[in-house]
């Protein structure tokens, strides 16, 4: 392991990479305590962040501008929302869309008129605009038409919307891209890394989504009030909590996972290290009953998860069907000191992958003090540098030992080389094409690591036959095309995780697993695949509300307990609370 890397495992028994980094297992992960939305909510509560509305200029249809101020102990930020009319026919969740219901951004520091004007001219254009470097996040969202219209109608008529609507589609708005790190002129991530508020990966993007959720509530109430000032009511607090923000995601997530191996390694290592420590805890009877309670909640949540995708339906069904076995196990097995290790060993023997990983996720809920220190270890200093003076034979040994999985693939069949990944001329959208059938293979993105490792390994073996004492740099001077993969192997070989073990060319590849792996670290729930490479899901469903945050919660453990949210029961749909305008 490199000197500057973090080894939070501290001698714990981590699961082997051969198990953890299998693509299907990564595609079975659930959101956990270490997911970025959970971490952000805890940080906001601990540091007493305050969010206030400083402008709410919307017309009766909800179109206009809204601005929210965030005050942290370290700084001030503003969330800026532009809402505009949109033809139904222009409403698409593809990255290639050109207009949206809402465009928004988060700005560092004060928001003066000049900056607001600049944003008003450019945010609605998204990729086609030029954004100010004070903008930290750039995003857009479209309405869930059914929910939005239904919510407005209900609130305007003085009744609460049906909670079941949010079980079917858990949001009023769905984002289609949440840009950070310098895209289209906004601030580089390096700006945030030195700070104290948004230094963790994707935390500022998650904050932008959290603010959108708040805006969506205030906007829908505003429209209802405008339509029927006499009858309109505010949304019930329990229902507000049950409202999240949707996201549509496609293949664009896959290149990120492959091109940031050091960051992915850090995410997985932190999660696995936390899990290893949790499994070492000696359970109490209270811990056991807490796990039973959490398992029941997760079971109910999954049974309430709606998707039209048959494969995901089947996986949810199998998980729900097997959780009673988990409950039975928990209720009957003696409270031994190694109970959690017994549980995971039993789960690995008897349960499908998605249920195994659910059990792991739930176990991590039991021990906040054990798990939460790892939330500060999700970042990586991403530097992939050559070690030119390494003996070439040593490099070969590293490949033989740590990339043996890549050497095992047989790329001689059509099936093994079926797909190629490329960027389309339409907004550079990543796509998959069939090799030998579709045009563009010569412009393939080099995402498949295994074939490159194999080619380099073959060339190294040949070179060593002639020059057994050669250094890596001497080999590369003769065969420079292998420079990038050699650097990657040198950087990654001795890290526990980081390389996803899959043939990304194979006809049977399930890109959905890549998407879900990343989304689980974001904290997504309600996975609703629309194809094998396109998924909708929900963020922040069940999360504490802005007004609860502003009230400075005394019990942070309770504030943080919002995983696997359930459809609210016993909401009086006729309840009438007088709606109030935002401050």
């Amino acid at each position, binding site marked *: 392991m490199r000197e500057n890397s973090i080894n939070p495992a501290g001698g714990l028994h981590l699961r082997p990479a051969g198990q953890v980094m299998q693509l299907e297992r990564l595609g079975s992960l659930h959101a956990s305590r270490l997911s970025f939305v959970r971490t952000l909510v805890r940080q906001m509560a601990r540091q007493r962040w305050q969010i206030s509305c400083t402008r709410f200029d919307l017309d009766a249809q909800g179109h206009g501008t809204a601005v929210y101020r965030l005050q942290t102990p370290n700084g001030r930020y503003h969330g800026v929302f532009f809402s505009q009319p949109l033809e139904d026919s222009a409403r698409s969740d593809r990255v290639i869309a050109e207009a949206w219901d809402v465009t928004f951004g988060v700005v560092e520091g004060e928001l003066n008129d000049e900056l607001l004007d600049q944003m008003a001219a450019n945010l609605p254009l998204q990729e086609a605009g030029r954004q100010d470097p004070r903008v930290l996040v750039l995003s857009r969202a479209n309405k869930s038409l059914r929910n939005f219209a239904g919510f407005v109608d209900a609130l305007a008529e003085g009744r609460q919307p049906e909670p079941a609507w949010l079980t079917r589609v858990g949001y009023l708005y769905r984002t289609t891209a949440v840009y950070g790190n310098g895209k289209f002129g906004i601030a580089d991530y*390096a700006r945030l890394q030195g700070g104290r508020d948004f230094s963790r990966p994707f935390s500022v993007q998650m904050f932008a989504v959290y603010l959108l959720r708040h805006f969506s509530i205030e906007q829908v109430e505003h429209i209802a009030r405008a339509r029927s000032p006499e009858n309109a009511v505010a949304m019930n607090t329990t229902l507000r909590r049950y409202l999240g923000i949707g996201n549509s995601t496609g293949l664009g997530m896959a290149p990120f996972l492959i091109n940031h191996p050091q960051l992915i390694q850090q995410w997985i290592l932190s999660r696995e290290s936390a899990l290893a420590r949790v499994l070492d805890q000696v359970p109490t009877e209270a811990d056991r009953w807490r796990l039973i309670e959490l398992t029941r909640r997760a079971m109910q949540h999954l049974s309430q998860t709606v998707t039209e995708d048959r494969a995901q339906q089947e996986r949810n069904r199998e998980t729900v069907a097997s959780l009673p076995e988990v409950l039975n196990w928990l209720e009957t097995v003696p409270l031994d000191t190694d109970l959690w290790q017994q549980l995971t060993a039993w789960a690995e023997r008897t349960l499908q992958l998605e249920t195994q990983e659910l059990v792991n996720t739930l176990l991590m809920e039991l021990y906040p003090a054990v798990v939460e220190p790892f939330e500060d270890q999700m970042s990586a200093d991403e530097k992939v540098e050559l070690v030119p003076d390494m003996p070439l034979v040593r490099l070969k040994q590293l490949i033989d030992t740590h990339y043996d999985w890549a050497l095992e693939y047989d790329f001689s069949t059509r099936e093994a080389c079926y797909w190629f990944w490329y960027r389309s001329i339409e907004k550079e959208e990543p796509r998959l094409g069939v090799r030998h059938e579709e045009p563009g293979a010569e412009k393939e993105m080099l995402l498949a690591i295994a074939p490159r490792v194999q080619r380099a390994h073959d060339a190294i073996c040949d070179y060593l036959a002639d020059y057994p004492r050669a250094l890596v740099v001497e080999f590369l001077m003769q065969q420079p095309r292998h420079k990038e993969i050699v650097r990657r192997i040198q950087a990654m070989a001795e890290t526990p995780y980081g390389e996803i073990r899959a043939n990304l060319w194979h006809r049977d590849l399930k890109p959905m697993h890549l998407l879900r792996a990343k989304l689980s670290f974001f904290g997504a729930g309600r996975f609703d695949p629309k194809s094998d490479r396109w998924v909708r899901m929900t963020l922040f469903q069940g999360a504490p509300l802005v007004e609860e945050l502003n009230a400075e919660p005394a019990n942070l453990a309770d504030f943080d307990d919002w995983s696997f949210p359930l459809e609210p029961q016993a909401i009086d749909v006729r309840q009438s609370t007088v709606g109030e305008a935002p401050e």
Partner: protein
Amino acid sequence: MKVSHNELKGLCRKVFEGMGFEEGDAGDAADMVAWMQGYRLGGLEALNRGLNYLLNEDSEVPPDVLYQDGDLAVLDGHGQSVLRSSSLAVELGFAKARARGLAVVKIRHCHNRQLIMGYLSRLAGRGMNVTAFWRNAHAPLTEQVVCFRSNSTVPEIRVYAVQEVPEETEPNDAITLVLTNHTGLMPAMRSDYQYDMIAKHSESDLLECRKQTLAQGIDVDDQVWARLKELSARILVESSDASRGGAGAGTTDND
């Protein structure tokens, strides 16, 4: 216009990939350009000056080692841009210095020499003292010295005109690198020979520049940016109904 560092690096990488650079070389070259521009040292201007040259050079000719021993190497860059040819030559020097304490590498016949600074910065970040020296053989005769302390990715730079011009006028398109583990060679303008200082960049000045570009964005010329955008499109594949299906989603919302 203003762009971010990540945006500049990403665009340059696509441009170089589109020119046929190997993946590793494309990333390294993009780093070199973005590094210089981030310190307001004219990386994009240097790239733009050499862009036609780059587009026409033969990509299949790697640098040759003309001579080497344990701590010295002389290479022929075949007149190629340092963006394409220098990284492994520099790495060769790094390996020799690690083994022998000090190494000297001379790369003859290379183009766009300014741009090598970004790669040298990475070597310094890996704990190597690096000094680069080159001369321009036109009037006035100028010399450039770029010095990195080990573990500092920001250099001291001096560019000066030499008043006493030597008789030999052979074109000098080489770079000489001195790499040392434990000895730093920094600029020291105390010679009796006469010179006119043309540019002087201290570590602290450059750090301040980087701080400003991080906060305010990086200035780029609109026309250069537009040309790079055009070149970057070479890596993109034309769209069709079939390829839209390759992204896996429908085109309208239904929720």
